[in-house]
């Protein structure tokens, strides 16, 4: 059963938001952001009538390969997040996930996704692709989707550590996946196109790093929670022209703000490091709260701060494999949590002159929350207080908005006193 109703709603919401956009320093990049979202979901919405082949995939999956094969991607977690953000139907989706038999402690985007498929809110994919990058939830979600959607699937086994042997293993996994996709879709891998995508990935990373450099300035020229939009580039459009266009526009806007000294230092009272992702459904509430207290997230080492890397377009598949190790989430959250990673986070706090850190303790994400004590201790040693806020990314019933707001307010007041 597929009605696609909810995808239409996402597309319509994006169009309405674009039309309502207000003049401001980020107006053009914001418009591009919503245009990109609209493009992504329109393509998915029209995939069937256009004879497209849809591959659903979990977060941090190498969608570059899908683009190179002219396969229509469906980012599973992002789609559930957007449903929460634009449609507010979390209760319905999570309840449908529970009916399938998924326990409440399973990551809510995955429960919601299963619910969305059973309710027919999303088109059933032609194949399901998933991997253990980044957690047990991503590793285990695929087989149920295959069953619910009656489609074949491929599990990409991402090795745990970064060395030549493990990268070779991953490259072979990617080769197997390409063979699987060629067989199921009838589309041939276009290796030249993949090389182009890798080349653009270098450009994408360079732009992201330029933006991050601008965010080091005091005050930062970027919006308090602008980083949430930054995520979209790599999640939905890795190595794609849409990502480049958005990042270039944003970079130029930030440069303009700095050049024209269009900055109000009094608006930035607290420079924050954000660890993990805040509740998506609270975006507007948090925007208002951050504005009230002059709080600005200037660095997110788990999500937007990429390490320096350059990939070789002539070794496209190996580059895709290597890229998976430098994705910020992968770099910080996957593999052994050793001294280098801890130092990376503390150094980021120092480099961006943050006064405090907020760790969004998404209760469905066990591997992230288990790092709270380690990062809190390390940041405290560096004189940076850290607040952990219990929450759920999409489910507002876990912790009421007011309770989260109060915690943040007390934290900002504490920072005032320091």
């Amino acid at each position, binding site marked *: 059963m597929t009605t696609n109703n909810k995808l239409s709603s996402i597309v319509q919401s994006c169009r309405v938001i674009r039309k309502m956009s207000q003049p401001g320093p980020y107006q053009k990049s914001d418009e591009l952001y919503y245009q990109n979202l609209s493009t992504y979901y329109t393509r998915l919405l029209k995939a069937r009538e256009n004879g497209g082949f849809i591959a659903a995939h979990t977060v941090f999956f190498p969608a570059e390969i899908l683009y190179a094969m002219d396969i229509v991607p469906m980012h599973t977690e992002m789609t559930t997040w957007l449903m929460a953000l634009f449609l507010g139907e979390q209760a319905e989706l999570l309840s449908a996930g529970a009916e399938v038999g998924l326990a409440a402690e*399973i990551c809510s985007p995955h429960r919601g996704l299963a619910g969305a498929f059973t309710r027919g809110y999303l088109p059933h994919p032609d194949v399901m692709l998933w991997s253990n990058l980044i957690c047990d939830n991503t590793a*285990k979600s695929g087989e149920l989707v295959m*069953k619910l959607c009656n489609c074949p699937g491929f599990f990409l*086994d991402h090795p745990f550590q970064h060395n030549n042997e493990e990268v070779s*293993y991953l490259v072979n996994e990617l080769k197997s996946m390409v063979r699987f996709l060629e067989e199921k879709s009838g589309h041939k891998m276009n290796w030249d196109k993949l090389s182009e995508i890798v080349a653009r990935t270098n450009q994408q990373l360079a732009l992201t790093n330029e933006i991050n450099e601008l965010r080091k300035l005091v005050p930062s020229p970027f919006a308090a929670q602008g980083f949430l939009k930054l995520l979209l580039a790599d999640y939905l459009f890795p190595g794609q022209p849409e990502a480049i266009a958005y990042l270039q526009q944003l970079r130029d806007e930030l440069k303009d703000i700095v050049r024209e000294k269009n900055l109000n230092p009094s608006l930035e009272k607290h420079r924050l490091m954000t660890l993990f992702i805040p509740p998506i459904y609270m975006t507007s509430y948090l925007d208002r709260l951050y504005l009230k207290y002059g709080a600005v997230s200037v660095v997110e080492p788990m999500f937007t701060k990429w390490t320096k890397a350059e990939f070789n377009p002539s070794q496209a598949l190996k580059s895709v494999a290597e890229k998976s190790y430098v994705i910020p989430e992968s770099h910080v959250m996957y593999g052994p949590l050793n001294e280098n990673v801890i130092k990376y986070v503390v150094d980021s706090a120092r480099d961006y002159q943050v006064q405090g850190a907020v760790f969004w303790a998404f209760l469905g994400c*066990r591997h992230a*929350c*288990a*790092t709270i*004590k380690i990062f809190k201790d390390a940041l405290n040693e560096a004189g940076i207080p850290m607040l952990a806020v219990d929450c759920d990314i999409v489910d507002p019933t876990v912790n009421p908005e007011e309770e989260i707001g109060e915690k943040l307010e007390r934290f900002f007041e504490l920072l005032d006193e320091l």
Partner: protein
Amino acid sequence: MTDTTIISPNNLPEIEYFHSINRAFPGNSEIMDFKAQGKKVFGWLCTYVPEELIVAAGALPVRITGYGRETDLDDGNAYLYINNCSFSRSCFQRGLRGDYSFLDGVVGGSTCDGARRLFDVWRRYINTPFYQVLTVPRKTTDDAQALYLSQVISFKQNLEEFLGFEITEQNLLNAVELCNETRGLLKKLYELRKRLETPITGAQTLEILTASFRMPKASFNAKLKHLLVALENSPVTYKGRARLMLVGSVMDNPEFLQSIEETGGLVVTDELCTSTRYWSDPVIINNGEPVINAIAHRYLSNFPCARMYPSEERFDRIMALCRDFKVDGVISQIIRYCVPYAHDVPLLNDKMKAAKIPLLNLDVEYGSSGSGQIRTRVQAFLEMMEAHKK
């Protein structure tokens, strides 16, 4: 004499001994005596860590477990947060409070989020001299076997360097023979449970299994051999109202099974990593094959944990056990936040439904005694099965 209510256990001296070893764990006499000889003891965190290498190095492998009973986990919560499984939190708390201070090393694997983060916080906050984490693929393809073998070889090299001791092919062979002997004896124990009237309860079996990774294998094997002879000739047997199988998360407290069995159900087999999955497959050395290759192959291809892909093999093996042990019903006990097993619930439900085997899903915490609500639900499950039979 057949006991259908299963309240009077067959109190053989060997079972009493294993019980005493478990009660005194981690500081039991077997471990302390071994340590007193100047030998090293290594803790392992998951069944994907090959014990044979530790044995071959002349050291004692001991499985790191938590309290195995209901207790406050204040430190575990503070360091691993409340949403990691209570097994990880319980293990860590014991470590932090010094219960494992005798360990010379800790070896983990990238097996699940709980296990890998337990390793991370242990390494950061508990001072143990040797650490190693193995990359454990989730597939069993040739490439995956090769990758895992390289990890096992690296573990061997690091052990040799740490201990200043070369692990020879003969050392490995001896270790394989010893561990295979344990597996073979435990298999014989399980064969006894296939009988319609078994000489041992599920709770007693778990007591034995748990002791098997808390003492030197040679000593354990000697005791188990005596016990098997006694059980073969035991006048006491158990039947129960229904033959049950236990599947799901890690479990090492016999009280939980005892609680189930006090309701009249007899646990005759399981799929636990502390039981069947621990002993099920021996290391098989093919002609001319290096022993370490055979060890690596066994550990990656063993009866799979829910972490492995595809899940179908786990389900197939569960179904085979149901047939072999003439199981009437299956109890799935999943520790809260044990995500790999929780994700399999909808799929396992369907398999069981198709096979017409009743399934009871229980959400538990590690160390739960199985009293109260759980007991009531098991009671209702048994009644449902009985009503269905009529």
